[in-house]
């Protein structure tokens, strides 16, 4: 088996609101290998999104270790973490989260504005990403002019455009009808299979999780069938 690209050891996340403590994750350990398509499953409040956010570098663990491609993300400063996310993580959100005043092309181009690429080079990357998700003919459309499924595909293109190490998708089909959901999940499968992308999917839907190569179950902040080393 390939070397793990994500290594999590005894990871805990505790939220404190005054005197109240909420243990979102309790000593979770997990490995994810390069090229895997992993579904994090569990009911609402199980900690699956929390785990995803920590892996993606938009949240910090209270204790434990999270190493992604050799980098302990918990030790990075906020500025370094932003830089790390830019290079290594592509996000797909449940509510798409496209910028409404930008076209599909511009939404996909947004992460590339932080790079040194020229306008021409950016165009190549954006067109390739939109072509991959089958929306090359919708570049000039704004999110309001796209269907839900199309918006999510634009979001996937935005996640892909920087060629990240990981693609993290938090309930990407939660706001879609069955047909669009199937399209999006099929696209993620294709990216994993054909492009070798490492994908971590959070879902509570077993049908969605079935598209993944491996399912990891969480409940009340603990792994039920996670890997422990």
């Amino acid at each position: 088996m390939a070397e793990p690209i994500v290594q999590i050891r005894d990871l805990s996340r505790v939220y404190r609101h005054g005197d109240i403590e909420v243990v979102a994750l309790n000593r979770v350990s997990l490995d994810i290998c390069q090229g895997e398509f992993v579904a994090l499953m569990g009911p609402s409040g199980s900690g699956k999104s929390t785990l995803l956010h920590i892996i993606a570098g938009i949240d910090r663990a209270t204790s434990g270790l999270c190493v992604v491609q050799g980098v302990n993300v918990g030790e990075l400063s906020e500025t370094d973490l932003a830089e790390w996310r830019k290079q290594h993580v592509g996000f797909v959100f449940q509510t798409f989260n496209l910028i409404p005043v930008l076209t599909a092309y511009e939404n996909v181009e947004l992460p590339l504005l932080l790079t040194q690429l020229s306008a021409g080079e950016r165009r190549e990357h954006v067109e390739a990403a939109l072509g991959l998700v089958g929306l090359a003919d919708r570049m000039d459309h704004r999110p309001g002019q796209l269907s839900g499924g199309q918006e999510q595909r634009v979001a996937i293109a935005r996640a892909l455009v920087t060629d990240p190490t990981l693609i993290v998708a938090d309930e990407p089909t939660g706001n879609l009808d069955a047909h669009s959901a199937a399209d999006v999940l099929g696209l993620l499968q294709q990216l994993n299979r054909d492009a070798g992308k490492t994908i971590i999917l959070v879902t509570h839907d077993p049908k969605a999780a079935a598209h993944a190569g491996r399912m990891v179950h969480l409940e009340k902040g603990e792994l039920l069938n996670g890997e422990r080393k």
Partner: protein
Amino acid sequence: MTLHGFILRNALRNKRRLTLTVFSVALSLFLFTVLQTALRELTEPPEIDDAALRLVVRHKVSLANVLPQKYQSRIERIPGVKWCSKFTWFGGIYIDEKNFFSQFACDADCLFNIFTEARVAPEQREAFVKEKTACIVGWKTMQRFGWKLGDKITLLGTAWPCDLELVIRGVYYGGIDETNMFFHHDYLDEALGKWSVAGMFWLRAENAEVMPELIERIDKMFANSAAATKTETERAFQLGFLSWFGNVRVLIGSICSVVVFTMILVTASTMGMTIRERAREIAVIKAIGFNARQVFALIVAESFGLAIAGGLIGCFGALFIANHFDIYSLSRGFFVKFEVTPQIIATGLLISVALGVFSGLVPAYGAIRASVVERLRAPE
């Protein structure tokens, strides 16, 4: 698209709010520019070289008090006095009160030896001196009323109990104020029935060195008389005259402070509202890799752009108005000049820059401090 393009798109997403905010900043900066210009015109009267040798002799108590005409011969005999003219403000009405312009009775034969910066055609000057009912008018007033040489002008007395009928024999150009009318003091004396008084005396000294001595000597000469005098340079006289308006500097300064403060409230409120509405989008761009400095810069740049747009419109709008409208007529002669200087515009633009930066600071700080996860989880 570039980052600048992204900032512009964000700024333009709510065009109504943008227009109203820019307009309110523009109006505030317009008001600020106009007030500062008015303050400058009131407290910094223009200086010209020719004024350096001029002195004004007036009643010590008040400009409203008159002096005996007999003082003139005594003043003229003082060594160092080159020319001396009686000078009395008439304050008459030409047809209607709103047609205000200044009229002065003077010694026609030496007026332009004292006010050497004014240019009059020699034949017109001669015609003015020769005829008792003649007058000379500044070209701005000639243009304002469409007068021509030879026109008869009737002035209804207000400060003085007489009406005057004058004939325009000349036009003058140059000097600080190109709007005045000058006529013979003899004519006023005749109309008043030989009151033998004058509002003040204007002198031209031989040279600058004698001026301090002249001031002291003239005032000492009349110190113990019923009408003691105050002699001062033209500059000091102008500044003293302006003090009639009270502490204009404090008044206008206060108004300008309120204007600037109101602008800050409006712009900061707009930016705060805008950033709150975009909280989730900001979380998304942070998630995709925009660091705190970049997010901060995006927000402050938008605020800056909004403020500077308003500042440019307001300041240069005031400049346009000042250059293309007859402020003298609009102010009924209150402002002879209304010059919006580069310094005033620079101050206005500097204020709008500071406004833009400060208005964006708090929302930007809030945005970079906010948790990405919490903002993504918040309901839309």
